[in-house]
């Protein structure tokens, strides 16, 4: 057949042509630019506008950053060195570095203690954050860390935190021993042992061992205060938030309504008013004569604030679980506590991770609000002592830029971590 066909046409090509490269306009950078920058006329206009914006941004900031002064004792000296040229006076950062990080009252000889606590925070958080890749034994250190950090930052004798730690260990042992008799009984037993331990610790905690210089909480300040408030409040509010979310989903009307009222009330008011409560009102509700640390009052209110938000996030996670998961728990004969711990909560928490991280990042940013009730956190330090001093009056950009950068690094890091964690926990195979 092919023969006849071959005769009917004049010429049939019998070898493949080699591949030739695409035209120059359709390859590499040119093609990319054509597709991504100048696809249509409006697009090209936008591109040009964007380039102009970027140029102005860089033209304004680059000389200022590159020409910055890092060594000077005051803004006048900075201006002398600059001699009319544009340039930032970053010397304020090197001059007031310790104040920005630790506040202006923390004893300067003891700066190594919060710094060490900060470094150890990573060691303590690592086994929780990268639980798949690190040995489980490291979790022991995570358990010890809160007490260690308290002793390092606040100082004093090591005995009270140590006794408190032992109290928690005893409570855990009691919980394990009673667990066979039901989750509720075990929790009650554990709490009982804990209370006894705290009372004991209070009575014999006066013994002085390994004493560090004691620092009262009102001397905390700077970025350290933001870190303390952020980490403490987030870690306390997650368990409370879980309890509130479960309470809100519960069939028991009284418990449900207590939780609903608490959550809606807290979510309906701005954090500032809660800080006002901590600052001026809370003292009226405590027994006469008790002086409660302002930091502890603030921690209580911020924790309440964060746990209401986390409760709503987790409620979303609980609601998103298919009904069958709850029924599966029932059909296995698990009781409420077992079903929740083994089946429901792990899945619900996994769904809620992005929401919880959002709340945590938002909360960390909101710790700057304590500067409004005249506590000297990072923003409070900048607005108060540093900008008010005659040496650095007028160095706004460098200081606020530094504060913004510090928060950006932490918050962006946390949100990137949460996206990584979501991918890591992604168990559905699609």
């Amino acid at each position, binding site marked *: 057949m092919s023969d006849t066909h071959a005769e009917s046409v004049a010429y049939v090509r019998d070898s493949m042509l080699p591949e030739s490269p695409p035209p120059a306009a359709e390859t590499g950078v040119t093609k990319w630019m054509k597709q991504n920058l100048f696809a249509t006329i409006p697009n090209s206009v936008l*591109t040009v506008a964007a380039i102009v914006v970027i140029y102005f941004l860089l033209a304004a900031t680059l000389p200022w950053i590159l020409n910055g002064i890092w060594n000077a004792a005051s803004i006048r000296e900075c201006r002398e060195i600059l001699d009319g040229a544009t340039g930032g006076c970053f010397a304020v950062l090197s001059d007031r570095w310790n104040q920005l990080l630790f506040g202006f009252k923390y004893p300067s000889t003891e700066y190594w203690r919060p710094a060490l606590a900060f470094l150890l925070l990573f060691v303590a958080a690592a086994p929780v954050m990268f639980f798949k890749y690190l040995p489980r034994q490291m979790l022991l250190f995570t358990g010890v860390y809160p007490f260690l950090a308290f002793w390092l930052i606040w100082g004093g004798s090591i005995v009270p935190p140590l006794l408190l730690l032992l109290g928690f260990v005893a409570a855990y042992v009691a919980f394990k021993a009673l667990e066979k008799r039901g989750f509720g009984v075990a929790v009650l037993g554990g709490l009982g042992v804990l209370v006894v331990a705290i009372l004991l610790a209070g009575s014999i905690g006066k013994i002085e061992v390994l004493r560090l210089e004691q620092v009262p909480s009102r001397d905390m300040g700077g970025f350290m205060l933001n870190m303390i408030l952020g980490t403490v409040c987030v870690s306390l509010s997650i368990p409370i938030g879980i309890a509130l979310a479960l309470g809100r989903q519960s069939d028991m009307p009284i418990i449900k309504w207590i939780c609903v009222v608490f959550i809606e*009330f807290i*979510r*309906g008011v701005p954090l*500032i008013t809660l800080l006002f409560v901590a600052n001026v*009102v809370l003292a009226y509700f405590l027994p006469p004569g008790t002086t409660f640390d302002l930091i502890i009052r603030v921690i209580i209110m911020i924790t309440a604030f964060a746990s209401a938000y986390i409760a709503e996030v987790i409620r979303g996670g609980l609601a998103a679980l298919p009904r069958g998961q709850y029924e599966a728990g029932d059909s296995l004969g698990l009781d409420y506590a077992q079903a929740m711990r083994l089946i429901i909560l792990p899945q619900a928490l996994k769904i809620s991770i992005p929401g919880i991280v959002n709340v945590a990042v938002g909360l960390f940013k909101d710790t700057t609000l304590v500067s409004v009730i005249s506590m000297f956190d990072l923003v409070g330090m900048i607005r108060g002592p540093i900008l008010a001093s005659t040496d650095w009056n007028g160095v706004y950009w460098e200081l606020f830029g530094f504060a913004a950068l510090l928060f950006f690094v932490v918050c962006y890091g946390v949100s990137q971590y949460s996206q990584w964690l979501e991918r890591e926990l992604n168990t559905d195979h699609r």
Partner: protein
Amino acid sequence: MTIMTDPQQESFRPSMLLNDTRYRSYTFQFIALMVLIGIIAYLGYNLVLNLRAAGLNISYEFLGEPAGYDINQTLVEYTSRSSHLTAAIVGILNTLLVAFLACATATIFGVIAGVLRLSNNWLIRKLMSGYVEAFRNVPVLIWIIIIFTIMTAVLPAPSAFRGDDPDASMILGSVAFTNRGVYVPMPVWGPGSMVVVVTFILSVIGVFAYRRYAKKLLYATGKLLPMGWPSLAILFVPSILVFFIMGQPITLDFPELGGFNFRGGLQIGAPLIALWFALSIYTGAFIAENVRAGILAVSKGQTEAAASLGLRPRRIMNLVILPQALRVIIPPLISQYLNITKNSSLAIAVGYADITATLGGITLNQTGRAIECVLLLMLFYLLISLGISAVMNIYNNAVRLKER
């Protein structure tokens, strides 16, 4: 014969309170109620003791007393002789003003940035993600203070506008940016101006009615009326006609330099602008993410189906994508409005006289009525939140996917 017996009725034992599911929930609720009552009683008891020790009582009489402080930006009549209650109302109106302004501009910023983040222009995409990340990851308080600092420390003083060769000049001869605020021309409402205003409001309603009618006609018959120029015409033509018929009753009062400061015109104080602008760009970044998520939530098949029907891209966006995306966008958008309202309480950091600064700030400090002031403050914000979430629920029910 076997004798049928009922299973033996168990007598009630105390342990059943914990172990029997019939009673257990009652036990728990009883315990919870007792604990709650106990806590409230304990706090109340302490409150009574503390108040007695301080010689105070709970009373709202201070609201009627003269406030004795000045407020620089007020929407209603206020002098330092007015009562604390008036000061609180001034604060409430200021809160609502800045919240409303910020909601409007934040929506504009957010929608623009959210749509542009999905643009196929690489540079614009990167620029917008830069904006979103930069603003989402830095506390709003820092942004407010930074913008307030620009307003007060970088902009020229009014005196810089004086002289034959001034250091600063007004934009178009009518808008002046100074470190005390921005001066813009203020409309002067002459006699008969109300007719113009009413006509304009009616025109706005008319535009909505027309667009609604056009859409209905489109869905019912497929006939598409023009939307763009008739809307504009309805919006402006009647008002302009009435404006000239009534003899131009609305004139503009331009700000002018006089003495040490600008005279005339409308002064928008630096704190208001800082708060307004900072809340807008901060929340705009969050809204951008909501908008992006909403548009991405509409499946690509919808676009393709609409395209296969022969619709043009703009029509696809308006008639197919946006109505579906709005269903996803609106609920978080309304929570963002709520956030703006609550974040406006940061006004206290820049000295804008909102409710937190008047009632929760100066009034509280002057009268020492901490409990009453904070309680009123919380009540106000609670009412706003409840109001906004009620609106949200109504809207949600209206646009909910109607499934059969």
